[in-house]
């Protein structure tokens, strides 16, 4: 297929996934900040939300204060923030339009309808309820798009490149949450975290929609090292780094199998998956959670460049 088509499909999937992630961050933050201070402490959750979205620098270049209003506007509706939900949908649709022939009708309609709806939402909705509705709608749009892709696309390189986009973005997002919140997940020396941390942990799990999953997997109350385990190493958890890399390797292998040639992207993805598979949570904590995540983010970026060079340019 055309390299440009593959590139568009890849980024289309990434932007839809990113919009959903931003919606979940905003939702989780709204929930945390709605609680009395006694439960969550004096941290600025809105500042943390901007950092988790990976746009702290851009945000503080134009804003002095991170609060509910400024952050919601910046992450959801701003036209200046290239990664706002609004712009994610704009770019996703522009990409979809450029590769309409590679999309099924259902996928196009999912993305086009979302884009048309977004126009109807207009500027920032006034009330918290409207914003909540908006954030739910964003997640549903992403589900509809993803579901249409899964149910209607031919299983060929177009599908695989779009899946690669989803898992690259997902891995990146999960890693970013871990990077910002890692201090909350460090095992406490003496006692397990008090109620303050508890709600923070729940917030982390919510932003990757894994609160229920946690209980099913561990059948325990929230423990930071188990949360880290779930998000990093647990292959059952669809947003864990390990699961994302399992899927990346699979989809890249399908492409390579189809083209009859392996390349740097496949080798790198396999190496990263190997590192995740051979890691134990205790070792990660010993050598440093923050360092581990930092190294992963670098690896993930390198895979992105390899992919671009090998297929998309």
């Amino acid at each position, binding site marked *: *297929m*055309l*390299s*440009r*088509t*593959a590139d568009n499909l890849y980024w289309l999937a990434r932007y839809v996934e990113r919009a959903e992630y931003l919606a979940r961050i905003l939702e989780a933050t709204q929930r945390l900040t709605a609680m009395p201070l006694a439960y969550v402490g004096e941290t600025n959750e809105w500042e943390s939300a901007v950092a988790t979205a990976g746009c702290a620098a851009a945000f503080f270049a134009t804003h002095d204060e991170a609060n509910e209003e400024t952050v919601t506007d910046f992450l959801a509706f701003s036209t200046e923030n290239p990664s706002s939900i609004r712009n994610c949908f704009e770019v996703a649709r*522009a990409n979809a*339009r*450029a590769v*309409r*022939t590679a999309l099924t*009708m259902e996928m*196009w*309609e999912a993305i*086009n*309808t979302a884009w*048309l709806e977004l126009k109807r939402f207009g500027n920032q909705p006034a009330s918290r309820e409207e914003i909540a509705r908006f954030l739910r709608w964003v997640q549903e749009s992403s589900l509809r798009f993803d579901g249409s892709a899964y149910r209607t696309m031919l299983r060929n*390189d177009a599908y695989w*490149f779009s899946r690669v986009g989803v898992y690259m973005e997902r891995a990146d997002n999960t890693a970013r949450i871990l990077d910002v919140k890692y201090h909350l997940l460090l095992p406490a020396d003496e006692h397990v975290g008090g109620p303050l941390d508890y709600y923070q942990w729940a917030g982390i799990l919510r932003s990757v929609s894994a609160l229920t999953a946690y209980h099913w997997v561990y059948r325990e109350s929230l423990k930071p090292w188990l949360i880290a385990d779930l998000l990093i190493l647990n292959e059952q958890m669809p947003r864990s780094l390990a699961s994302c890399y399992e899927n990346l390797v699979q989809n890249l292998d399908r*492409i390579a199998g189809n*083209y009859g*040639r392996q390349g740097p992207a496949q080798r790198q993805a396999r190496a990263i998956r190997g590192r995740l598979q051979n890691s134990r949570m205790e070792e990660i904590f010993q050598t440093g959670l923050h360092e581990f995540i930092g190294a992963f983010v670098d690896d993930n970026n390198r895979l992105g460049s390899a992919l671009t060079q090998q*297929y*998309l340019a």
Partner: protein
Amino acid sequence: MAVAFDEMKGTDGEIRPAYSELANWLNGVRPDVLEYRRKEAELLFRRIGITFAVYGEADAQERLIPFDVIPRILSALEWETLSKGLEQRVKAINAYLRDIYGRREILKAGIVPEDLVFQNPVFRPEMNGQKVPHDVYVHIAGIDIVRVDADTFYVLEDNARTPSGVSYMLENREIMMRLFPELFSRHSVAPVENYPDELLATLKSLAPDSAPGDPNVVLLTPGVYNSAYYEHSFLADKLGIDLVEGRDLFVKAGIVYMRTTQGPKRVDVIYRRVDDDYLDPLMFRPDSALGVAGIMSAYQAGNVTLSNAVGTGIADDKAIYSYMPEILKFYLGEEPILKNVPTWRCREPEHLAYVLDHLEELVVKEVHGSGGYGMLIGPMADKAQVAAFRAKLKLDPKGFIAQPTLALSTCPTCVEAGVAPRHVDLRPFVLTGRDRIRIVPGGLTRVAMKEGSLVVNSSQGGGTKDTWVLGK
């Protein structure tokens, strides 16, 4: 201006046979049902994303062309005449282009004035003596037809460069079949859905001899910002070919390749929807970012087919149009089946004098204009507009032609006040391959939605209708 001929009611009010079923149905259908279906159609178009862009309007990035749910109907006999006439016309156009870029016999015979060709910006000296694959220049033509009475169809314009609109022909039919299945069961309507297959067969038949048995055909688009981008992606999809932009292609050692995820792949036929001017920055406009550097050298080496050929503008130019009946007779030795609209060439002094005397009743067109821009419709214009145009015309008579204001035929159309006659034209699409000419029965009917308006261009608020050719 004469009373317009109505395709349903003729001039005497009696329902014409092709429309009898439709007239019955229209009598029985409740107005709110029509209105409801119209809204449904609009929703479908919007959801599918069938939009177009209007140049020079900031906010009109993506607009819908109004769609009228009442079909326009042609009888089998009418279509038979039309399709014969179209085939004849396109044959003559191809013979003329072969000659203009070859031996130039028509110029030697003094039938077409030399300066009209050589001083014409759409003439491409680069194509002189250049052989094109299988000697066919215009592979896809959109011939605009208007009707003035029961028997007279005129060719209004030959579109021999990159004619658009065929996606509407196909989508209008799809939507009509979804909305009005009962209407189709009461008529026998010739299908148009095989157009993409016919087009692909045509394009493949034109591949250069050096191409492999199954040539690689692509559609070259200027990109998402082009007003016809929807059509480009639609056609590429229906044909099952890659939709490429200039940056997806490159030329190496006289061969055109596209960049794919598996490395370079050779391209044999390019259905290009990019104008000549933008095709190759090395040969034409050096500032073009839409084209492919070196593509002309590959073309001249005979390694790739460009569809349509380069330089076909010299056939559909408005200045050449008025010579088309003579051109046709010169090459085919036949009388034209489809007539031209009577045309005054303002370059000729007697013609100019007549036009200046009758501006109020004529339509005056810029020779190089298109899309309904830069024209004067005498009967619709006020005194100041006529005066301004007169000055423009005197300054550059060669730049204009004039035609009588035709009473274009009308068809019943849904308007706010109910169903009323509106003026229509027709653009059938003619495909010329190495082997034969293919025409699917029908075309794009454009309708002027405003009462009395004769301008059907979508950029000027015109709409479209499904066009039905009835079986025998």
